[in-house]
């Protein structure tokens, strides 16, 4: 199944909607077929010969007849419409909030053209930030706080949750839940500028144990995983203005948090797979791969590029 297709979905925030969508789709197709049949048989049905046919004859002598079509057609349509309307209201109510209290709140901030993901917790020591990839525990509702740092974006994981816009100056709340483990793709669904096409994110549904392990790992600071090197100095000089790696002193917030970068599946909001060669290509010339992206091309020597790539490759 295509990663964005939603004829089949995987969670209670969206499954009733999918059934409603199929229901309305079947009604819609039936209407088209019925009208097409009526239209064609109306055009081609056999008709009695005209009396006194001349070039100026009409099919009727008076302006009457046929009105019962309007009564019948409109009457039947209205009944179907009322039925669909009630079904819609029921489904809207069912998916507007989760059936049980969410286990987790994730705050997603959209920016041109990537996603910052912040895991909230009453315990400040357990708050952490990651980017472009949301991990959730399977089978549990997750509350989403959706905000934007610049223009309007829209959060959409077709197989888990319908769209919710992210509008500067307001916090929109939504929720999702995955009923099976797996990776679900999403993509920004509101035109947000040149790279609207390359603003994807992933939702990874883990088992409860895997999720807890992932969460604990994300909370660790980097120096524990990556030893200092020349590559680290390049990072601090060139990249730290915009990017944070927790545990290092420069902590820019304009770009994605890169702590544990290597645990992520993709780079540049879903544009590239997270492989060393792709990472090096991205660092050396982001504008060639994602024209207009906010990350400027870095004037690095070959040695510096290799060093920083190698160092980033240790950020598990």
């Amino acid at each position, binding site marked *: 199944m295509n990663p964005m297709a939603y004829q089949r979905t995987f969670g209670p925030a969206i499954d009733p909607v999918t059934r409603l969508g199929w229901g309305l789709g079947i009604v819609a197709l039936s209407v088209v077929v019925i009208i097409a049949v009526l239209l064609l048989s109306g055009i081609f049905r056999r008709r009695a010969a005209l009396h006194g046919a001349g070039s100026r004859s009409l099919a009727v002598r008076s302006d009457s007849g046929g009105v019962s079509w309007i009564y019948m057609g409109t009457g039947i349509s209205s009944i179907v419409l009322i039925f669909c309307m009630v079904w819609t209201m029921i489904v809207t109510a069912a998916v507007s909030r989760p059936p049980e209290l969410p286990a987790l709140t994730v705050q997603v901030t959209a920016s041109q053209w990537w996603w910052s993901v912040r895991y909230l917790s009453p315990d400040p020591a357990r708050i952490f930030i990651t980017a472009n990839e949301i991990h959730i525990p399977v089978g549990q509702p997750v509350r989403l706080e959706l905000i934007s740092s*610049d223009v309007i974006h829209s959060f959409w994981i077709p197989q888990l949750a319908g769209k919710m816009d992210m509008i500067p100056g307001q916090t929109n709340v939504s929720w999702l839940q995955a009923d099976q483990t797996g990776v679900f793709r999403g993509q920004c669904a509101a035109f947000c500028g040149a790279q609207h096409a390359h603003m994807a994110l992933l939702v990874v549904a883990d088992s409860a144990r895997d999720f807890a392990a992932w969460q604990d790992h994300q909370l660790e600071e980097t120096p524990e995983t990556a030893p200092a090197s020349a590559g680290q100095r390049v990072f601090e000089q060139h990249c730290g203005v915009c990017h944070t790696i927790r545990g290092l002193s420069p902590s820019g917030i304009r770009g994605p948090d890169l702590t544990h970068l290597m645990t992520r599946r993709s780079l540049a909001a879903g544009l590239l797979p997270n492989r060393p060669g792709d990472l090096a290509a991205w660092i050396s010339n982001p504008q060639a791969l994602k024209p207009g992206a906010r990350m400027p091309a870095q004037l690095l020597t070959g040695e510096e590029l290799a060093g920083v790539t190698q160092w980033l490759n240790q950020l598990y």
Partner: protein
Amino acid sequence: MEGSPSSASLRKTWEGKPGLAGWLSTVDHKEIGKRYIVTAFIFLLIGGLEALAIRLQLARPNQTLLTPEQYSQLFTMHGVTMIFLYALPVLSGFSNYLWPLLLGSRDMAFPRLNAMSYWVFLFAGVFLYSSFPLGKAPDGGWFNYVPYASLAYNPGPNIDVYALGMVLLGISTTVGSINFVVTLARTRAPGMSINRVPVLVWGTVTASVGNLLAVPAVSLAFLMLWMDRQAGTHFFDSAAGGQPLLWQHLFWMFGHPWVYAIVLPAMGIVSDALPVFCRRPLVGYTAVALSTVTTMVLGFGVWVHHMFASGLPILSLSFFSAASFVIVIPSAVAVFAWIATIWTGRPVFNAPFLFFAGFVLLFVIGGVSGFMTAAVPVDWQLTRTYFVIAHLHYVLIGINVFPVLGGIIYWFPKVTGRLMNETLGKWSFWISFTGFNTAFFPMHILGILGMPRRIYTYADRLGWGTPNLVVSIGAFIFAAGILLFLFNVFLSLGRGKAAGDNPWDASSLEWSTSSPPPPYNFAVIPIVASRYPLWEDIMDEGPERSSIGRGLLLDKGRETVGTSPLDAEPDVILKMPGDTYLPLLLSLAITVLFVSMLLHSRWGSYAAGFAGLLATVCWLWPQRALGQIDR
């Protein structure tokens, strides 16, 4: 009658000057109507070329034919062009040309205003394209959401051109709409009571009233946006207490009624012309006329269905969802009226009939996909995907372009005196119908496969490649159908069969004039006794007969008769203004004012404002010929 002494004097009174002078100064509704249609068609072709460029880019995954910025400008200008510079203007063209002929009058109520509405439309269209050659065309989508359209994220002239161009175009729409409303209320032939006017008239007047209520919202929104960008206000700036959603409300409060404004007159074309090819009157005239009005009234209560995903409270969404379901009902009335007309009639398979019958099917497909998006949670999935692109093209091409093409073939003989080639007409229908469905039906599937709108490229692994290729091929087939249609127009202009006055044996008043009609339309103002004046002798609808050849002559200067709004009782003889350069001059002054605002030229604005004032004073100066000064 034609050829009599009085018709010679009428001709002398009503005919414009020859050459360029006459062309620039004419206020003849027929000239203005033709211009509207030709100009709108040129914009249709430009918008079509933009669409084809978009389809080349999307035909395969990861293409780099267009840069992201070029793509943004192309899809924005495609929407702006088709919605604002083609869809309404082409219908204004039909209505301008046809209204006085349908209503038995010699011109629109305000002929000079009519000329002005055309000139401002033309200049606004040129204005909106002025930055295109510089690579700085509007690029925020036709919906132009803030804050993307604000100065911080879009510092170039792109959005200023759009904002000012839309306010300028709004002037054209407003004066044009006022003219239609007053024309309906004031200048129908005696006896053309409100329940006898053709459905096209109902459609256009409904659209015009809708425009008068809707356009202020969008003009205000664009003015506020321009002030945010250039005068330091903060209407839409959330950091300073403004509200981005305010833009969406104002835009869609206008945008949704506008959608009905660009389909209701086209539905009127079908309601009037389809019955001619079914050889019977329209079934349920009263129901169809009332459903036209009902659609527009309800159309003002559904704008939030463009904003279902914006985080508004569920309760308000449910209200707008219900209203969006209910609006299907008046459309159902019209659909069943057309089907009943075909069923109980005797179809004649001419090319216009094909376009109208095809239209009914496309209307229904576009309608039911719209019905699906009325359901709030389903819309959370469907909105801003290709499903919505499929829906809106079925609606706008299906309900606007197909009736327009059928309508052109139908009225071509009246306008030019020649019939269009029937074989080419049928071929152009089948090619464009096939191409259209090949291009737009697979978009429903692309939407369900999760392809978002307004992305300039996509990765192969997402599985959107094959449907996109089919869509692109369909787009080129559709374009070929349109080209063949235009070829037919040019061929038939020179070589078409002579038409005579009433080649289709139609029922309405315009077919009682010569083809093309004389400058004064009717030698005498007809007196109307029924809804189908030219069919009275072949129907058994009572003894009353309309009087086409005998009536008020009114040949003492430019005159037509003013009648009462409902029953069309003759009321007064209206003095009509003759040809003048003032509409052109006033339109130029207004346009220069907007150009000066765009260029931040203070003195240019003052000068243009003063010139506009001067032109207005000259326009309103009392004239003896108009009876504004006591003799």
